[in-house]
């Protein structure tokens, strides 16, 4: 049995897919979700083979939902109008359907899905996300984190600093620390350079959190943050820091 999930915030849009899916008895629609939060829960619970995913949804987008998954099911994006997204789909999704789409167009997407097989894709998620954001010129405004089955949305304005932690990035906020399956290089590229600066191979600091720079042993400098935490500055980080602080 092939399991499918529909994630779309508009009930009528879900109905369209549901009615088209009725012609595929081998596929069972296990759940319909109205947003990414429900979507994450449903995907973790059912481990579906196929997900119909809308992009613009409440709180987190379809892309942000993908960032939170450990294994990727086959994805068919359904969207009304997203120029930037189209390019991304071609490389990464089974197909994308532009709303409103015809039954023939839907069948074509399903043919593609059935031909590629129903194995879950174990694609490297950070890479996928990186590709998606490379095509989306806007800067990151928020970071979406998975806490078990729950989703935490962190505004970038609440971040004090980021540190590298093996394959993860640790996000330090006043509320606590959160792990994100992502690279520091990704954040360096996507965070507003007027707000954040990479001072070290393993650290990106929010500029307004800096209180002072102190020397530490010989030739070594450290940053003191508002919270009192100390961050090392590397030789390549110091000129960047000087440039953003204008010193």
């Amino acid at each position, binding site marked *: 049995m092939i399991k499918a999930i529909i994630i779309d*915030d*508009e*009930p*009528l*849009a879900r*109905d*369209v897919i549901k*009615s088209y899916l009725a012609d595929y008895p081998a596929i069972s629609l296990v759940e319909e979700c*109205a*947003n990414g*939060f429900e979507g994450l829960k449903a995907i973790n619970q059912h481990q579906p083979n196929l997900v119909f995913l809308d992009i*613009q*949804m*409440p*709180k987190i987008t379809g892309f942000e939902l993908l960032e939170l998954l450990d294994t990727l099911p086959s994805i068919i994006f359904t969207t*009304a*109008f997203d120029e930037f997204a189209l390019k991304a789909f071609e490389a990464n999704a089974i197909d994308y359907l*532009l*709303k*409103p*789409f015809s039954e023939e167009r839907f069948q074509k997407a399903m043919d593609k899905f059935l031909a590629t097989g129903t194995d879950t894709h174990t694609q490297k998620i950070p890479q996928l996300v990186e590709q998606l954001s490379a095509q989306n010129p806007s800067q990151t*405004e*928020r970071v979406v984190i998975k806490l078990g089955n729950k989703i935490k*949305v962190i*505004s970038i*304005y609440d971040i004090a600093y980021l540190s590298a932690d093996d394959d993860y990035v640790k996000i330090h906020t006043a509320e606590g620390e959160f792990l994100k399956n992502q690279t520091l290089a990704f954040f360096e590229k996507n965070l507003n350079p007027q707000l954040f600066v990479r001072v070290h191979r393993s650290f990106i600091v929010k500029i307004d959190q800096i209180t002072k720079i102190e020397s530490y042993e010989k030739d070594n400098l450290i940053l003191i943050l508002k919270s009192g935490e100390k961050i090392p500055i590397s030789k390549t980080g110091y000129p960047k820091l000087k440039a953003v602080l204008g010193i």
Partner: protein
Amino acid sequence: MFLFLIAVFASTQYYTLIIFHIDSKTAFQDSVISNATLVACCWLIVNSLSFYRPKGYRYLFVIIWCKALAALGIYILYLAFQHLQLYVGANAYLFELSVPVRFMFFLLFIGSMAVTSVLWYHQEEAKSINLRKAETEKLTKDMELASLREKLQPHFLFNSLNSISSLILSQPTAARKMVHQLSDFLRGTLRKDDALTDLKQELAHLNLYLEIERMRFGNRLNTEIKVDDEALALNLPPMLLQPLVENAIKFGLYDNLEAVKIQISASYKVPYLVVAISNPFDASTSHGNKGTGFGLASTARRLQLLYNRNDLLHTERQNQQFTATLKIPQND
């Protein structure tokens, strides 16, 4: 190129003078000074033409200017030669003889320089005018396109069509109703005139939009409209409220998972029509830097253009509620 030409002139002059049995020192000094003066005159004419480009009969001035320059050049030559004690004594007549020739040569050369530079400047000017024209045209086109896109709101339009496509099978009557609402809404949106409308009409148009959105989002979207009767007949620019309501829906619905209530109220507070539009928002995820949105900025800009005031749009965040308040001045 120019300097090469001058060098050729100088050497030609030098040999000509030698042929006339003038000693080589004098010939050399003469050719150098004459041609240096010529270069200076040319520089003057080219430069002056870069600041002043004659039109029509004013070309006469250029000819006069060329003649004056040539005469001035010759006079400078005369002074220089006197100073250097060239062509004195028995040779003095040689210089006097050569004055008409020198003058004609100067005039010809300066004149041709003037013509060349006028042509060149004209060409450059035409080029830059064309470039500017192309840029302006492109800008206008981009702006028109942007405003058209904004009016049509592709995201809203395609999602509405998708809803209709969904309803056609399950609820054909509702589908037909939605087609009519969407058509009426688009017709109103694409209307061109900018004449003031009254609140009653504006609300009717807004209602079309809200009903379409309610159809799309089902029971997640609730609206509450409270309007004082006396406010209904008041005037406002058409489509002024639309972007603010769109904003309220966008931020209300995309910032919350639960059902959302958009509130619109209007009243008459002499001499203003006051309209308030509010939506719930989540302070933890929508930050002040971003939440203002395009709708608010363009509304503020429009009010500024229409009434030349920037205090007519006011926004406020309180108790997880975002409110935009508009004051529209009434003339009577």
